């Protein structure tokens, strides 16, 4: 699943085509609902639009009438009334009644959104700067989901793909017709998980769990974005949900379980520098590039350069420590030990120590990372 996620490969391809056509027309309303919650929100909004639109037109009409008829240039003399208690009571009571009428369905909808019980599947969603992680708690596997749009498309040197900024390498796959309960949290700052067609927006808060639920009606690809400002690449951490029929979902799940078992790294394996560098470059691309940049020069003033850095070219232990445990000085440098495996950390450190102008020739084995972890724990 390392290739770019192509929707044609799913059972939902026909549905995707129609979404693609819709995407060409500038939409002026909420996206087509694909869950009961989204439909509830859609209908409630339509109702509100009618009510508020009606009130606005009424206010506008009365005002325009006065502007046209009660003007000095039309010879209208002012009538000096300035009080009428009956009228005042009427236009206090009527808005109150309208609000009461709105409040009833609005209350029902809130209670519905909040009823997360009776779930058939639980997925934990973790927001990271700037990507999402999905953990299937019942099956004990999970993966990161990164933006798949190439940097060149953002810079404008190549054409922008159809789903520009709304495509990921690994979508969240869920079965249709099952109640999915989401547990949301974050690793660093507050993020917000928003998929309009599923009717969900829920903040992911570091150190706390929040829940939400959805049950998708029909197979399809549903796209969304982070909707809480979370730093530099807030605009570049999309969400893609691939809803499949329960059978298709079971196939996918079985394949995933097998893959998870097979790809578990043996932490005692001894790697060659070339193999570690190759893997490390990938890990670097997925995790470190936003701040330290592809050329390793960072962003002066905000994110330090790795190219020529004393930490990277210095003692191995210091380098391992900062990657594992983060930086005290600069909170933007996270403790990667919590998200990456020993092998991935060993690989990325080995890569950094032998990339750009850094030529230490040293490599770090996964076993050293494990030792550093246990050392830190004790």
């Amino acid at each position, binding site marked *: 699943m390392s290739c770019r996620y192509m929707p044609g490969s799913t059972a939902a391809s026909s549905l995707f085509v129609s979404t693609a056509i819709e995407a060409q027309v*500038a939409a002026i*309303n*909420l996206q087509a609902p694909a869950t009961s919650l989204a439909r*509830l*929100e859609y209908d*409630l*909004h339509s109702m*509100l639009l009618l009510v508020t639109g009606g*009130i606005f037109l009424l*206010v*506008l009409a*009365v*005002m325009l009438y*006065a502007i046209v008829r*009660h003007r*000095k240039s039309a010879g*209208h003399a*002012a*009538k*000096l*009334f*300035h*009080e*009428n208690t009956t*009228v*005042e009571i009427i*236009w*206090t009571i009527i808005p109150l009644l309208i609000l009461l009428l*709105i*409040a009833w369905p*609005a*209350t029902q909808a*809130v209670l519905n959104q*909040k009823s997360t019980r009776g779930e058939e599947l639980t997925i934990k969603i973790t927001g990271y700067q700037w990507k999402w992680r999905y953990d299937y708690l019942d099956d004990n596997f999970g993966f990161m989901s990164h933006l798949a749009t190439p940097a060149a498309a953002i*810079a404008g040197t190549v054409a*922008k793909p*159809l789903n*520009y900024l709304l495509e990921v390498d690994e979508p969240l796959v869920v079965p249709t017709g099952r109640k999915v309960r989401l547990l*949301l949290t974050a690793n*660093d700052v*507050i993020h917000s998980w*928003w998929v309009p067609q599923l*009717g969900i*927006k*829920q*903040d992911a*808060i*570091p*150190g706390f769990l929040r*829940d939400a639920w959805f049950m998708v009606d029909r197979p399809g690809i549903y796209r969304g*974005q982070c*909707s809480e*400002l979370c*730093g*530099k690449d*807030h*605009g570049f951490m999309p969400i893609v949900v691939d809803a499949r029929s329960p059978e298709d979902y079971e196939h996918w799940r079985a394949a995933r379980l097998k893959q998870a078992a097979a790809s578990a790294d043996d932490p005692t394996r001894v790697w060659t520098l070339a193999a570690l560098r190759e893997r490390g470059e990938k890990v670097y691309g997925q995790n470190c590039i936003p701040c330290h940049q592809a050329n390793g020069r960072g*962003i002066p003033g*905000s994110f330090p350069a790795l190219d020529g850095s004393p930490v990277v070219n210095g003692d191995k232990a210091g380098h391992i420590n900062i990657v594992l445990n983060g930086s005290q000085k600069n*909170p933007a440098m996270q403790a990667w030990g919590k998200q990456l495996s020993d092998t991935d950390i060993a690989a990325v450190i080995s890569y950094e120590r032998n990339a750009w102008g850094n030529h230490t020739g040293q490599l770090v084995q996964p076993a050293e990372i494990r030792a550093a972890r246990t050392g830190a724990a004790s």
Partner: protein
Amino acid sequence: MAIAGLAAVPQQSHRPHGWRRWLFATNHKDIGSLYLWFAFCMFLVGGVLALCIRAELFRPGLQFFQPELFNQLTTLHGLIMVFGAIMPAFTGLANWMLPLMIGAPDMAFARMNNWSFWLLPPAMALLLLSFVVPGGAAAAGWTLYAPLSVQLGMGMDLTIFAIHILGVSSIMGAINIVVTIINLRAPGMGMMKMPMFAWASLITAYLIIAVMPVLAGAVTMVLTDRHFGTHFFNAAGGGDPILYQHVFWFFGHPEVYIMALPAFGIVSQVIPTFARKPLFGYTSMVYATSSIGVLSFMVWAHHMFVTGMPATAQLFFMYATMLIAVPTGVKVFNWIATMWEGSMSFETPMLFAIGFILLFTIGGLSGVTLSVAAVDVQLHGSYYVVAHFHYVLVAGALFSLFSAVYYWFPKMTGRMYVERLGQLHFWWSLLWFNVTFFPMHFLGLAGMPRRIPDYALQFTQFNQIASVGAFMFGLGQLIFLVNILYSLRHGKTAAQQPWEGGNTLEWRLPTPAPYHSFSEAPQLDVAENGVVVAMQGGKHG
């Protein structure tokens, strides 16, 4: 030069000259002018930041600004417009007009008044300076949510310090307004008779005194989390990131009314003048304004409907928010009833006041839509919210400010502005404001998050329309500047009462208002909304 022109008043002996007049200013008119010019400059600076944002968003892809700089632009645009432009502009108007409208010789604390103004330039300098420090300016949005604001560079520290200074300035300005209104009204100017603008300023001042310390507390907690090892907002240390939002919005929602109530006050003066008819339902307007002030403290968490509050909290804040629509509706109905059966003429102040009612109503109604928690789940953090609050703040606060400046310009300067340019300024602003912000409703509904430097392709058309609108709107504000600068020197001489229907106290003064007015309080017989029936005595100079 321009400042001197705006306050071009008859020569009197006991008045400092040159730069001393401004730096050591204690005269409420001079300080009011300083506030207004400062606010206009900040409006231009904040506007340029907004145009940078719209330029970047004209096309998908990153063209002009990298994401980290883009976030700084949105953050500083918000902070500068709120604290540098709108709030000082209202304080400036209150300084200039309140003593004239209630028959006071000056503001109650003349020297503190000087200090409240002169704290503003250093605070804004700190904010602007933060663009060039390592790591750049604050980039967490004007709301400065923790823990993101805990991560940022030293630009954030400068921002926190600037907010502290701005808070001190606003609180001192507000105390001055409260004391002036309570203590310095001329005999006969009863509380339930004084102009709505005075009422609105009074309630606003109370809101400022109540909530600016709360904001100072919130950012101070961020400061100590950043540098002194506290964990107010860090769960790992026993804190809670959401605590920041509760504290911030306990300030933030009353802040919305701090920027809206004075606008209500201005419109309640302008509409009766140009409808040549007393304000309809004065008493209910006073009560509506007060109840909006009180309710504004009970709705803060409607900014937090997607943080995952329990259902009961969602419901409480939803109902309380919906309730605000009632007094706000009463105000709109009262203004329209004032226009009804009037004898209206449509000079620039009236046009801006009518534009205000129309567009503020749209902003209010989209606010009702947002108040419904279940729908807010789709709209929160989207461009719909951006559209909503710009309808409230640009078409609300800014249009009312333009209305006020055109309305009182003759009294302040002794000259008339150029009516044709004023009308052009209004129609131009009305058109391009809507071209800029109406499409943002569509963008938000269709799923575009706010505060992003780049967007998916289906959002392109409306973003382009909005960007074109923003540049045209910005250009139109130069019409205002040209009008003011030209009229200060060459405007026609204004009569004592340039508006036929103007019958509040300020129109009883000579034009331009003497440098020292009402040094001896007049005896007044006043009807509702500050309408002067009879006046005796009252010396100037």
